[in-house]
Every structure is written in C-alpha cells, then in structure tokens.
C-alpha cells in the first residue's frame, strides 16, 4: 500500500534532477545538494504541505528559500573552503566557473528568473505562478538581470 511517505519520495524522485539543476543555478554545484535537501525536507515537514495544490511549485519555492539561507551559512562556507583546500571540488566544474561567477553577480531572485527563463523556457506568467510572485515582479527582475548580464558580457 502506498503511504504519504511513499508519495513524497516518488514526488521528490520525479523532480530531484530539475530541482538540483535549479539549485546549481542559484548557489553553484558545491552547495546545490545541501540546498535541495534542506529545501525539500523543510517543505515536506511544513504544516502547509498536506494542503499544497501545486507541490512542484512549492518545492521550487522551498529550494529558493533554502538557497537564500545557504548564502549565510558559516557551516557551509567552512565546508566549502575545506573542500577547495583539499581539491575535492571546482576542478570538475572548471568549465562552468565563469558562468557561475557571472550569475552570482545577480540577486537570488534574478538568478531564479534568469534560470527559469533561459533554461526552462518559461514565460513570465509561468514563472510568476511557479514562484508565487507577481508577473510584473518577474518582468522587472528579468529586465534588471538582462541589463546586468549585458554589462557583464560586454566586459564592463
């Protein structure tokens, strides 16, 4: 018999890859697994979870919140620095380092909107629904992100 836990596991497996890719765009490959774990677990144990009508959108928002929190984590910073010091990371992702650096110059909200626009090909209306924000907010963030990226790509 399928349980609610089974449902959640199945749901997570269905979206795990895309959530991890989304987290990578937000915080980079080193922190992405932790961010996904934190976000998904926090969503699952939320009192609101049983009544969520769009679980995938909810998980995206949860991962985003976890990504914002991750920026502040001394624990993760230390872990990241230790990993870099021992050469465990970065080398495997050398090719994406420049792109990550460019994205990191955007705000978290801008990174999310850029990723969903240019990777998932979502429209502002779809992004607004997914992230539960206004469509105008999405358009504003996207416009600002594009201008910022234009300057970065132009080398300014």
């Amino acid at each position, binding site marked *: 018999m399928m*349980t*609610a*836990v089974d449902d*959640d596991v199945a749901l997570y497996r269905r979206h*795990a*890859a895309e959530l*991890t*890719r989304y987290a*990578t*765009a937000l915080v980079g490959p080193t922190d*992405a697994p*932790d961010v*996904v*774990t*934190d*976000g*998904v*677990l*926090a*969503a*699952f*144990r*939320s*009192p*609101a*979870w*049983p*009544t969520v009508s769009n679980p995938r959108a*909810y998980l995206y*928002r949860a991962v985003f*919140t*976890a990504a*914002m*929190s*991750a*920026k*502040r*984590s001394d*624990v993760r910073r230390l872990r990241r620095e230790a990993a870099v010091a021992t050469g465990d990371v970065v080398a495997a*992702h050398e*090719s*994406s380092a420049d*792109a*990550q650096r*460019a994205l990191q110059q955007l705000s978290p909200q801008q990174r999310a909107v*850029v*990723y969903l626009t*240019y*990777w998932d090909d979502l429209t502002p209306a779809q992004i607004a629904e997914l992230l539960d924000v*206004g469509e*105008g907010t999405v358009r*504003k963030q996207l*416009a*600002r992100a*594009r*201008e910022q*990226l*234009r300057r970065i*790509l*132009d080398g300014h």
Partner: protein
Amino acid sequence: MDTDDLDTRIRGLVADAVAGTPAAPDLPTSMPAAAPSPRRGWVWAGIGIAAAAALVGALVWTGKDAPDGIVPATSDSGSTTAEPVIAWPEGVSVLVASERGIEQVSSEDGSAVVTRLFDDTPVSRAIMLEDGSIVYQRTGGDIEVLTPALQPAGEPLVTDDGSGTTTLEDADAPNGSLRLVYRTPSTDPASSFQLGAWFQPNEPLYTSPPGSWAVGYRRFSIVDQTSVIAATIDDTGQRSTFGFGFGDGEQTAPGFEAPYLVVGNGAGSYAVLRADGKVEMTGVISGVVADLGDPTLVADIDVRGEWLVAQFTDGSATLVHTADGTEYDMPVANGVVMLSRYALPTTLPTPTTVPTTAPPTTTLPVAGEPAMVTTGLNGVWELGPDGPVQWSTEPMAVAVKAPDGSMIVQRKAGNGEGDNWTIADTLPLRIASPGAEPEDLFEQLMPAADVVPGWYTVHDSATVFGRSLLLLDRQAAQSQGIETPNGALLVLDLEAGSLEQIGSVGGWEEGISRLHLAENGLIVGEWYSGVSRGLFLITVGGDVPLDHTDLGLESQYDDCGDCPRLYAVSRDGSTIAWLDGTTLVRFSLVDSTALPVVDLGGFALDATDLSVAGNVAVFDRRYRDLTPPVLVTIDPNAATSAEQVTSEELGAATRAVLI
C-alpha cells in the same frame, strides 16, 4: 549587442552554469517528525539534517509571533519555507549590530530580507552612510569603515585606547562630508567623558564638566550641521536634555519636559520620547509621530526622514513610518538597530497585492516611484510604478514621452558642426512601443518637402489645450558667423502633423537650454547670449501670465558663475523652479507664492538640467557619460532639506526627465 545576441549569450551562460550540476541528493529514509502532519507520515530522525538546518543563518524569516520574533525559514520550528515573510517597506534599510556581526534588513518585493554583511566579530553599532559605506565599531574596539563593497577602508577612524570604553554614538555623511560622534573616557580626572568628532579631530568636541559623574547621558546624536544632543538622567532620577552647538561654541539645551530619549534626525529636528511613551518631533518636523508604549522599555530610537526605528530592552525592535503610523516588526532581534543614512522613501506606502500564500487580507506597502524617462548608455528606459520598461537598447541623446504613449527620441541633438555627425542624425524619431524600431517622425507626419533641413533639438512633449505637441528647435549652420540667422522654436502637432514656429531662438553665440512645456502652454527654460543669460518664458498661444520680476529675478545675469539658472516648469504648469547656487527655488503659480527653498548640497553645482514635478526633482549632471542623474524628493514638512534617491536604473542612466 542586440536583443537576440544577448538572449543567445545568456542562454549559453545559464547552460554553462548548470553544466556542472551534481547528482540529485538522496533524502533520509526515515526520521521522526518535528510536528505531526495531518497528511504526511514523515518521521524525522533529523539529526544531521535538522542540525544543519538549524545552523543555517537564514536570510528569510517567517512568523512574527514566533519566539523572539525570529524563526529561521529552514529551522525545525514548524514554519514553512515557501510562505511569504515579514513585510518590509521598499527602500528602507536598517543595520543591526550584534554578537552576530552586522546584518542588514532591507526589502525584496515587499518582504524583509536579512543579509549578514559582516560576521567576523561582534559589533556594537553600525551605521550605513549615504554612499553605502558603513561606519561600525567592534565591540570594545576601534571605530572603522567598510566600503560599499564591504572591504575595509584603510586605518580605523578612531582607535580605542585599550580600555574598551570608546563608543560610537552617531554618524552620517550629508553632502559627502563625514560627521562622526563618539564618546571616549576623559583625560581630565574631574570629567567623566569626552565627545570626539571626526570633523574636529584635533581636540575634543566636548568635555563633560566636573560633577558630571552623577549624570547619565544616553546616546549622543547629531541634530544638524552644528549641534549634538542627548537625554540625561541624574542620580536623583531627574531626566533632562543636554545639547550643545559646536559650530559657534554656544551650548544649547532645548527645554523638553523630562524626556526619556532625545534623538536628532541629522536634518534639524529632534525626536523626543515622552513619559507617556509617545515620540514627538520638534524642529523642522513637528508633532507626535509614534506611540512606543512604556518608555522605560525603550532602549534607543533612531530617526531619519519619515522613518523611526525603536529598539526595546527585550531585544526586539520596530520600524515606524511616521507619516502614517505603519509599523513593521524587525525580523532580527538582540542587536543595536540604526536606520541607514541614505535617502529613505518619503512617499506614502502604496498597497499592492501579496503573494497568494499570504493571508489574503494582508497588504505589502511599497514606495511609489516617480515616473520618468531616462537615457544613457543603457538605452532608453521608462521608470514608473509598474517597474522599469526598456524602450530601446540604443543610447539616445534625447527621449521624451509623447502624449499618445509613444517615445520621441533623437540619436543626436543640436548643432554638431565639427563633430562627426550630420543634420540627419538630429531628426526626431518615434518609437511606437517598447522595443520597436525608431521611425522618422517627420516622415510619419508630413510631406518630405515640408521638412526644412537644420540641426534639430527636441525639448519636450505635452498635451496643451487638447493638442499633442512636441516642442523642438531648429538651428541653421553657423557658417555665416555673426550673420547667422536665429533658429526657430517650433511646435509640432503630433496628430495633425502641422509644424508651427512660435519664436526665434539661438543664433550666433546665442542659445537656449532644454525647454520645458507645460499643459497650460507655458514654456520655461534659459536663454544665453554671449556671457549673459536669463529666464526664457513664453507660451504656446495666449499671453505670458508673468515675467521675471514676479519671480524675484533679474532680467538677465552677466558673466556670473552662481546666478540663478536651470529654469523649469512642472508638467501641470503649477510650479516654476530653478537653481540658485546649490538652492532649489520653487514658485507656485497656483497662488503666486514662493515655496520654501531647498538646500541641495554640492551635487547641484554640477547640475546641467532640472526637471520638476510636485515634491520631486531630477537633475542631470555634468560629464554625462559618467555621472548619473540625481532624483531628489522634497519633504513638504521639512522643505529646507531634501533627500537624494538612487535606483539601479537611474544609476545606469545619464539623463532623466520626469513625465
């Protein structure tokens, strides 16, 4: 880079960024639940995950009623991660200094976002200055500065003598000049303390008098350019105020009745916490602005513009919009809270829709944004309440919004003889909608034969007595020297296509500034002739209702570096404004009275154009490719001062006009 190229490159950038996506993590298989779920049966052991989550210094906090008002979004508190967070007004930023370091509370789409700026060491007070740099004091240590990029800015401003008793009291940097007040132990054995000031580094700002041991001084704060103030309480419990002026050496002691706190706002007003718990402003701003309850529970307050932040003895804090009493709970606690010194929004909050996961009755206030058009290396943008809209990625010399909603632009403006551009470059172009290609305006409206060759400059556009008009001028080549004819000042009817000359302007060694067209037909600007200049004032049809004498101006100013200049009229024709030195002068045409003047500070010396609407003004500045415009909001209740507002879009522009 055109739009398609940019999109292609961003797409590639994102693909590169996620190319190194690691494998999706496995979730724990069984854990006891922190809170039972009616639907889910997850049982969270939670050892590794919950501990890690609890250690996360969360940026986003939820649940204002949670213990201490603080609930990390990913902690085991039972809060949800995706629900909207504490409301916070756009444009208002506070710094919280604590054992945690320095945190900044600001707004992202109407919600509070907490960013830790500095976490190396405990900090006793931190103040963000007007330029984004931060003055802070390590607990018991030196007073130092972080640059806007959060890098240490050289040597400490004040070095503690090792006793750990130096205290940072207040700081700001109006007009770019640092004002810093700090307290140090007195070197005089009869005195309890000295005040030091960054602007008076070689001698104490003030040395407490003998006997002052019996008096407790609360935080000293800056009132204005020449005075500092603090509330006091003596050993008999008598509460009073101690203030003094350092500009002229005279002591001043405003007679507030038994205040619990007296704090200056840096712009000429005091906030007084009274025994009844109400905060009353005195000075340029006056009146009761907040009710904080039991005053004995208020640890400190800080005021700037229309904003007040109160810090309570239990570690909590509240932000108050004094204009309407709206309160915002501080999302972090147990710290010393100070409002950022850069311009805070002075407009009233505007309700907007909340995310659907929020309680449906809640509204998030956001600051209104004056509508304007900007041009610069970032293209042409329209900024307004609905957010920025890019009309063109091409930098334009001029852009004005037409009454029909289109944008009139010019790639070049005015006489370019000697420059590497031609008369054709100055033709007005119309962009029908954001992103559309610019099209020749004359070609759209009139036979080609009717277009007179010349160097065109577009000035403004407005609906005047029901007609959609574009104001522009046309100058002839200056090859005839002193015989060069004057140019023509023209209005183009954007619907009828008729072009009408309404005056003669320019000519040999003569010219005009950008002219402003009001809906009542007034045209205001400045004329130049050799070393002389003065107010340019005409109307489209009808008589000119006033002249320079009505405004208290001379007919002309000769060879004068700091005379009145940059005349403008608001779109609705209600206000004429100009610069006199660094002072903004405004004259109401509604009731023919001069409005209080506003001291703008040094940036006004570089101003090259002025646009005015209500209590907002925008200045273009010299070195246009390098210096963004300045938006100034004028507090009508404190009209002798103004606050400069910056924004991302404005900072990337080089020219702006209010619409």
